[in-house]
């Protein structure tokens, strides 16, 4: 082999590689339907699901596009029947839920959907061998049984009022998923469901491509092709939205602002239950002191955080429940009052010591506050909190770390955490406040321990009566004023910029997670694009 032929070999190899890449055929696609209205949509999202298999946790909060649950949420987060024919019948003791199923529904491969698919889905998730990390959410469920082809009965271990909210979980076809290894079979990358869209292709780290399911029981969607591009970097996402590669995207407030003058695009601010909170661990002798907790609760300027950190896209938070939710207890808003906060500290014996830091019995009023490295929003919240606390004479040392660093310290050190789930107040509050869950994974991070709250949490989840439940949640919110184990700071709006050609869109109230279901495309199957 001579030098000349070596060079040729390289060129041949590169040509061959390109030829392999070109093996698929071309299809012209300008994103317009026959009547001239846009029939395809491309949106940019920041997060990618780990799996597309509902058996491993995909779409557990509903709205999974490829799949349907027994129930689903409307724009106001009210439950509506989906694969169920109507809302479930609940027994008087609150432990049995009976669903009649919709008839004539088919999976996108043409096979009929029936009660056995529902039983298969729930039983597989509950199976210890299934690697589903959200299994805990079905803790109340004892067993599922099929009554013929079109009815299903759920038996619970204990009365659990919000159980119907859990049945938005997508149903997998037994005739496909039942024939492979749940944890690694190709069902998680080639899912088949009953939903409005079918998966065309999921190229991990790049995009998820859907096409409309023409046989969808709810009617074929007008948007025939729907693509979610996964772009983690905010700036790159904004750039690709600007070049027209994307029709819509989720953006942080400062980047959404740059589209304000763009006449072809509209910004949607989705209201959320997504809160930022400081955990005040009971195990810390400063943060665990009720006087310190109460002083911080009224001595931090939440309004300033909303205005400066969130640029107005959010609201002040006084608990896990946002102030505009029907579950919010009016009158528990805390007015920012630094003078009163100082008085509380004075009265409790926290006297100003050296350097302006208060002291009591030789203990300095100081504790560490951790936030997740790289999370700018949490960093800003933590610094604002520390600065407000300093004015009261409390030294909060802000530090950053990964969850691996932070987790072992959670019992003693404060953490700037986030959370929020709009479907039912139980989902958030039980895990956040129940004393028996202290230090159980990321549940009850502050090790909050309050007997009145514990009892109210139990009452609230057992009762099927809306008024009784509301009373229990009122008790909890009032108790959090007297004995705050956390300082709730803000509820954050999620901002989306979308092309106007899709008409007026809506958003749902969103949870902390930026799931695939979030954003104006929560109901893309119902979009009515204009010409």
């Amino acid at each position, binding site marked *: 082999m001579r030098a000349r032929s070596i060079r040729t070999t390289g060129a041949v190899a590169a040509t061959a590689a390109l030829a392999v890449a070109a093996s698929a055929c071309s299809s012209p696609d300008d994103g317009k339907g026959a009547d001239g209205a846009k029939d395809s949509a491309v949106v940019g999202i920041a997060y990618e699901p780990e799996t597309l298999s509902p058996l491993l946790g995909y779409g557990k909060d509903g709205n999974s596009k490829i799949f349907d649950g027994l129930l689903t949420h409307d724009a106001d987060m009210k439950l509506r029947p989906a694969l169920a024919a109507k809302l479930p019948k609940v027994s008087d003791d609150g432990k049995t839920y009976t669903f009649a199923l919709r008839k004539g529904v088919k999976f996108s491969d043409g096979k009929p959907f029936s009660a056995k698919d529902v039983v298969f889905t729930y039983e597989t998730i509950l199976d210890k061998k299934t690697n589903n990390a*959200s299994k805990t959410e079905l803790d109340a469920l004892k067993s599922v049984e099929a009554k013929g082809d079109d009815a299903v009965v759920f038996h619970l271990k204990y009365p659990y009022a919000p159980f119907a909210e859990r049945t938005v979980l997508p149903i997998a076809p037994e005739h496909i998923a039942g024939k492979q290894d749940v944890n690694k079979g190709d069902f998680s990358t080639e899912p088949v469901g009953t939903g409005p869209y079918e998966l065309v292709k999921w190229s*991990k780290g790049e995009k998820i491509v859907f096409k409309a399911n023409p046989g969808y029981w709810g009617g074929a969607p007008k948007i025939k092709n729907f693509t979610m*591009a996964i772009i983690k970097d905010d700036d790159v996402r904004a750039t690709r939205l600007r070049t027209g590669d994307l029709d819509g995207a989720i953006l942080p407030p400062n980047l959404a602002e740059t589209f304000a003058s763009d006449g072809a695009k509209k910004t949607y601010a989705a209201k959320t239950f997504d809160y930022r909170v400081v955990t005040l661990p009971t195990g810390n002798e400063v943060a665990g002191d009720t006087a310190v907790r109460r002083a911080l609760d009224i001595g931090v300027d939440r309004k300033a955080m909303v205005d400066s950190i969130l640029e107005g896209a959010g609201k002040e938070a006084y608990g896990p429940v946002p102030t505009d939710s029907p579950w919010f207890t009016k009158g528990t808003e805390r007015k920012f009052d630094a003078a009163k906060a100082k008085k509380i500290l004075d009265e409790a014996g926290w006297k100003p010591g050296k350097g302006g830091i208060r002291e009591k019995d030789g203990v300095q009023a100081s504790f560490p506050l951790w936030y997740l490295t790289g999370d700018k929003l949490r960093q800003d919240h933590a610094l604002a909190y520390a600065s407000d606390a300093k004015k009261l004479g409390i030294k909060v040392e802000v530090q950053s770390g990964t969850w691996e660093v932070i987790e072992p310290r959670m019992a003693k050190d404060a953490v700037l955490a986030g959370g929020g789930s709009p479907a039912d107040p139980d989902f958030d509050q039980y895990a956040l406040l129940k004393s028996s869950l202290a230090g159980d994974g990321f549940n009850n991070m502050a090790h909050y321990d309050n007997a009145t709250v514990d009892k109210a949490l139990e009452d609230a989840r057992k009762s099927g009566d809306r008024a009784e439940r509301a009373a229990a949640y009122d008790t909890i919110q009032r108790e959090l004023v007297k004995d705050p184990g956390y300082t709730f700071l803000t509820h954050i709006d999620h901002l989306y910029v979308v092309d106007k050609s899709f008409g007026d869109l809506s958003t749902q109230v969103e949870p902390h997670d930026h799931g695939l279901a979030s954003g104006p495309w929560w109901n893309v199957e119902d979009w009515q694009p204009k010409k």
Partner: protein
Amino acid sequence: MARLAARRAVFAVPVLFVVTFGVFAVAEASPFDPVKAYAGTAGLTASQENLDQLRANLGVDKPLVSRWWDWLTSALSGDLGDSSTLRQPVADAIGERIGWSVLLAATAFLLAILLGSALGVLAARRPGGWLDRGITSLAYTLEAAPPFWLGLLVMWLFALKLDVLPAGGLTDTARTTVTFDQVTSHLILPAAVLAISQLPWFVLYVRQSVGDALGDDPVRGARARGLAERTVLLKHAFRSGMLPVLTLVGSRVPELITGALLVETVFSWPGIAAATVGAATSVDFPLLAALTALATAAVLLGNLLADLLYGLADPRVGFDG
């Protein structure tokens, strides 16, 4: 030639052995928890019992050595195991991605070698001339520019300002089919950035060695015999001046791999970059070990290739020296 290749292959076995064990040991020592990584956001609300069950299911509670041995023995029998982050067999995960990474790296490498040699020869013709000074200072500037920064810069210029090339991905985001011209237009920017990041080494090497060769006896002799300048430059100086460059080809492979990781990330190129980073931070042992073994093999092959090329180009070197 065959003996050299065989000897290197035998030598590669203990290297791969040590490297994969190293991966397991380093991952074990890292503070990352594979169960938390597997669970993702769901892990933040999962109960300890649920997490413990996951730990047992995933088999990550076994000791380091037995986990490594299990992986190694099944890998040797052809089963690379299952990736916990991607929830699919490792062989499938790599198979889906590696082609695109190879395409990107090969295109960029070829471009860097061709362009680098051309610029290097041009610069060497008149050492100290304006062309030489211009090319050399450009090479030093590019050497200092990080590839991801270059990536963002060309994306801003060609995709945003001029709107002539796509900003990322393998195809336009709305396309569902992979076509030749789609891939070509999407390949231009990332391949160019990767090539540019490799370019300075080739330019400077070629310039130096061709410049040296121009001063050597054979070249002076050729000139004295009255051969054309063009013939002297290309037939004599370039030929001997290219020898060190062949070694450089092999030694650039590791840098090419790391450069490709950054470029793939910036341009959302669906290669193995994202999988590699994900595997490392999620302590996805089977995927991480396989990818590391692959990268090690690529480096060893790169070195072997360089030596073989050197031997072919200059018979005096021989293969067993």
